[in-house]
């Protein structure tokens, strides 16, 4: 924006006009609301001080513009030297006003003019811009690294790149457990009463599980070419009832600390639901605990936000790792399952988006644009946890979902709503069975469907989370573990797409659940019609 200079009179109306002009200018920047308010108040305060000193009707100049990408505001008043920051007669709060308001104006007296300048913080880069910059940087570095001798490259990969990646992912996973626990507990407590919890919980959990079931069903239909009903070698499996019972019972923790130690997100969710419901049911008896939990929740989310500032670095490291380890190349041999998975994911997501758009009366374009940053972050990092903060912000600020639904629904969705993972697991298992010339009975296919559904939910929302589950899933279905090689390769490519698609689906389900409960404020949506 070009610099604008406005002459103003230092009277009540003139100062108000200057204040409005500053507000209009800052509204066009990407500064957060508090920074905008700080700047506006500081300008008002300075103008009032000049008026008090020089008198009503004195002329001043207001200069607004950008310098090196930073919004800049300036007031110029002709007269004797007077620094509004050094007043002698004001109250304690007025003396500290210019410091506590958050901006530090500078003062200069030049050529007979008193000049107060405020340089506002540079508007932050959007998440997508950061992610794209990180990918570009990663690609450039990875390509440059390919020119190094292989020994050097492998040494760098195993000694620096992979350890960096593992450490960061470990830190994310370490914070994710407590974050999910506290967020769900506080979300449940915030609901207010047991009747409301039952209503919200049923709506959210029901929708998210139904989404997963629909995804598995669609994956089965699309994978029809892979079916070998009773043909070829029949899959040998353990007792189906024991396998499924084991899966279901494993959801419940037997130790308060073990779920956190092992990063078992599903058990953490079960624990948090139990604790949240207990705190809610006990009401005033647990008032102190409720306050402490809320404060811990704020703390842990702050920690996660700080960790997420390092996401661009993780993206660079991942891009280099996948390029140097040749993972991408091996996947092109498995084009058919990749094609099926890709088509099913796109069709499923498109159907979700259209359904949400029609049901909640939000334009498709707005939904796509709003979900994009979180989807990109999750896609690039292969970690819905990395997009947690962005999803919270999107649901609350951009889509108008109320606080309780957001606090409760986002962490719950991160664990429960995984239609893309369900699609990936289903197609990969069916393809693996076909690759080994295996078929099965109707019961076997039913067990495959239920297992994929449960494992999709059980997978921790961090990159590589599924790798730990594949071995168990293959064994439970009687598919030779030699299939792990292809399964792993497919997972490494498609894990990223899964994470991104899951995050988009989560957002849709939270919005749909909020709409069904009347907890969707269309007026609060940015860009929505008032």
């Amino acid at each position, binding site marked *: 924006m070009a610099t604008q200079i406005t002459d103003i009179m230092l009277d*009540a109306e003139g100062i108000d006009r200057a204040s409005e002009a500053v507000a209009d200018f800052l509204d066009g920047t990407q500064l957060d609301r508090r920074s905008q308010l700080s700047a506006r108040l500081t300008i008002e305060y300075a103008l009032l001080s000049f008026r008090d000193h020089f008198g009503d009707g004195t002329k001043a100049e207001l200069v607004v513009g950008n310098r090196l990408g930073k919004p800049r505001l300036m007031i110029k008043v002709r007269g004797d030297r007077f620094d509004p920051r050094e007043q002698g007669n004001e109250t304690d709060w007025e003396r500290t006003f210019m410091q*506590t308001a958050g901006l530090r104006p500078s003062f200069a007296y030049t050529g007979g003019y008193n000049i107060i300048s405020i340089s506002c913080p540079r508007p932050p880069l959007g998440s997508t811009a950061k992610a794209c910059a990180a990918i570009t940087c990663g690609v450039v570095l990875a390509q440059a690294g390919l020119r190094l001798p292989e020994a050097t490259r492998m040494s760098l990969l195993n000694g620096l790149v992979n350890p960096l990646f593992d450490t960061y992912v470990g830190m994310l996973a370490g914070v994710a457990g407590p974050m999910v626990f506290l967020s769900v507990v506080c979300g449940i407590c915030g609901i207010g009463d047991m009747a409301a919890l039952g209503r919200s919980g049923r709506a959210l959990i029901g929708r998210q599980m139904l989404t997963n079931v629909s995804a598995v069903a669609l994956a089965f239909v699309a994978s029809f070419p892979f079916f070998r009903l009773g043909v070829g070698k029949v899959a040998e499996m353990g007792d189906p009832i024991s396998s499924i019972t084991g899966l279901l019972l494993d959801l419940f923790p037997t130790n308060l600390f073990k779920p956190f130690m092992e990063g078992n997100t599903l058990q953490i969710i079960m624990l948090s639901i139990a604790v949240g419901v207990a705190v809610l049911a006990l009401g005033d008896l647990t008032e102190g605990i409720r306050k402490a939990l809320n404060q811990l929740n704020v703390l842990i989310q702050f920690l996660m936000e700080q960790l997420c500032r390092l996401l661009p670095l993780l993206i660079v490291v991942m891009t280099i790792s996948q390029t140097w380890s040749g993972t991408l190349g091996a996947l092109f041999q498995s084009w058919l399952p990749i094609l099926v998975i890709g088509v099913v994911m796109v069709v499923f997501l498109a159907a979700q988006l259209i359904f949400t758009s029609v049901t909640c009366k939000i334009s498709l374009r707005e939904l796509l644009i709003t979900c994009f940053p979180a989807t990109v972050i999750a896609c690039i990092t292969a970690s819905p946890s990395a997009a947690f903060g962005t999803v919270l912000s999107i649901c609350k600020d951009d889509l108008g979902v109320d606080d309780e639904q957001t606090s409760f629904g986002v962490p719950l969705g991160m664990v429960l709503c995984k239609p893309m993972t369900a699609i990936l697991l289903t197609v990969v298992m069916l393809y693996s069975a076909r690759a080994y010339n295996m078929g099965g009975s109707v019961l076997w296919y039913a067990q495959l469907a239920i297992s994929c559904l449960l494992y999709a939910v059980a997978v921790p929302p961090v990159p590589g989370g599924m790798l730990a589950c594949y071995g168990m899933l293959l064994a439970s279905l009687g598919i030779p573990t030699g299939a792990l090689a292809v399964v792993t390769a497919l997972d490494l490519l498609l894990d990223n797409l899964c994470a991104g698609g899951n995050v988009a689906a989560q957002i849709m389900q939270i919005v749909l659940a909020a709409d069904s409960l009347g907890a969707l404020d269309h007026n609060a949506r940015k860009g929505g019609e008032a």
Partner: protein
Amino acid sequence: MNITTTIDGAKAAMSIDGKLTVATSPELEGEISSLPEAVKEFDLDLAGLDYISSAGLRVLVATQKLADRRGGSMILRHPSDEVYDIFDMTGLADVFTIER
């Protein structure tokens, strides 16, 4: 800006709608100074207040001091998020008694 005032003995309940700008702040200041000297409890409903300027903050600070001098109190009720942010960033959230 609209100000609605109700006096009940030593308590004055005021409802402020609109914006408390540099131009409109003197109106609130005048309304408060015209209250009987017996009034020492100031109950200000800010639910309808869209914005408060530095001048408006000065008036509230002066009112708080007046209440303190008279041995009474001032409470600000239901400020919007924006108005509360202004109190918070200027340090006045710790000075005023605010009911959200």
